[in-house]
């Protein structure tokens, strides 16, 4: 669980979008072999944290280190071989096939010129199989539903063969069955030695499949710990400004039930 070495470390990270500060002195560590869920209201800075981690956004203060090295020490391609981001959604304007898009995940591993090797093709196929979208390989991405597209993005990230996965609401458009299977897949991947930082609004799912939960609000960390430690009405009130009740079912799982505001 959280006993492994730190793979992704944020130390006092602040970041801004334009002139607006989004992250304020955030300190957070992701350990090897763990699934850490980030939760918080919209605008809390979760996606911004991902952008800092993938070096798309430079922090205004603080430092980030990956696998023990400062983030800046990695070359672009090196970073892409180690860390993969699954965005919330992506609209692709051109008629690429699903297989081609997944194969793009192999790009950081390829030489400067040239085409993909059979080994790369095999990796891409494996990634699609694990996610369960093999049958979509030759479909155009323009024809896919939102949920199918999300699975393609996940497969692409897998094809990158990363040590660290950043997943931004990976189950947002998925039906119940896929929600469960993706959560199980993430657990599997992490058991194989990877680590995952997951943004999710599904607190119940986070409680079941995540090792730790971090609550963010206005760019600051409000709570960090196991689901039992973090999912308390007090923490949730402070973070979301919502009254909740925490229920425990017979199997020991935690469920967060928002209480309707008084007067309804």
């Amino acid at each position, binding site marked *: 669980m959280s006993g492994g070495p730190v793979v992704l470390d944020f130390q006092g990270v602040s970041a801004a979008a334009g002139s607006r500060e989004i992250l304020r002195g955030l300190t957070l560590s992701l350990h090897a072999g763990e699934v850490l869920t980030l939760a918080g209201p919209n605008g809390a800075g979760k996606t911004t944290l991902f952008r800092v981690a993938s070096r798309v956004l430079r922090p205004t203060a603080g430092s980030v280190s990956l696998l023990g090295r400062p983030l800046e020490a990695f070359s672009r*391609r090196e970073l892409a071989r180690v860390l993969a*981001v699954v965005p919330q959604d992506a609209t692709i*304007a051109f008629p*690429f096939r699903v297989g081609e898009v997944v194969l793009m995940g192999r790009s950081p591993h390829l030489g400067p010129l040239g085409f993909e090797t059979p080994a790369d093709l095999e990796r891409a196929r494996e990634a699609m199989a694990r996610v369960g979208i093999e049958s979509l390989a030759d479909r155009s991405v*323009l024809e896919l539903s939102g949920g199918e597209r999300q699975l393609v993005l996940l497969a692409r990230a897998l094809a*990158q063969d990363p040590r660290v996965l950043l997943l931004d609401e990976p189950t947002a458009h998925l039906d119940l069955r896929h929600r469960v299977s993706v959560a199980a897949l993430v657990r599997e991947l992490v058991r194989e030695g990877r680590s995952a930082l997951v943004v999710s609004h599904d607190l119940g799912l986070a409680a079941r499949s995540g090792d730790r939960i971090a609550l963010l609000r206005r760019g600051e960390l409000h709570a960090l710990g196991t689901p039992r430690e973090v999912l308390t009405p007090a923490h949730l009130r402070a973070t979301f400004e919502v009254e909740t009740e925490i229920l425990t079912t017979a199997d020991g799982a935690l469920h967060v039930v928002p209480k309707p505001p008084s007067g309804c």
Partner: protein
Amino acid sequence: MKVLTARRAAGVLALLALAVAGSVIVGLAAGPSSLSPREVVSALLAPETPGAAADIVLRVRLPRVLLSLLVGASLAVSGVLFQALLRNPLADPFVLGVSGGAALGGIAVLSLGSAVGLSHAAVAPAAFAGALATTLLLGLVSGSRASPTSLLLTGVVFNAFASAGIVFLASLAGLSEGAGVFLWLIGSLSNVRADVTGWVALFLFAGLACALPLARSLNLMTLGEEPAQQLGVDVLRVQRVLLVAASLMVGAAVSVAGLVGFVGLIIPHLLRLLIGPDHRLLVPSAALAGGAFLLLCDTAARSLLGGRELPVGALTSLAGGPVFLWLLRRHQQRIFAP
């Protein structure tokens, strides 16, 4: 799983090269003066023999065949690049205003040149200077982090400004210059000088030399700037290099041929329909297909009506439009995102 392999790419390119060769043959053989195939061949094989056939084949048709190949290739390749960089399948090479700047420069000399003693030969360099100036301005105005939207908007403004300038200049122009201005606006390959052909070739090959190694990065950039960066692409560098390369290609082509429409927008689309959107094949294919297409259109433009000559820009639209609509109907889903 269907993916692009080196073998498939080679096959497609060989086919297109054959199409180019065929177009060259048609271009050299066809024309308003009826030369027999034997005359054409003997003119090519023995260039030193005097006679009208040699003049026509070697000094009228051949330079035009070459120029139309180069201009068509430049327009089609820059169309592919702009569409990828702007992530917009509806972008054409003229959308960022570079061609507007070129038109302004060229038409300024066309309308006012004789008044200040500039010969017709000054039109192309002036147009190219206009294209360069616009490219620089575009870079300055959009800054280091330009989103596709801001680039497009800047282009709209540039084009509007250039159009106003062109209308103003055209109203100053006399009758004879007016015809030249009109032809420039619609696109015509009748002005062929060896020196300008060289420049077009230079920027085309320089552009291809930049674009081909970056073709895979272009594929990734269609996913979005951030996803591409997260996959290891130096997005800023790719954008800068290819925007400049594409703008210079367009600038050179437009300063020689005027605003030949349709090639830069439709050839990339047609090719995507037929061979897929992978830029590693799309970019070189566009060069070959664009060249062959413009060559055939220009050959028709100068041969269809006997001694009269049509502007090639009119034909590219007339020819390409229906073909594209037909293809579009057959493959409706594959082009535009729902």
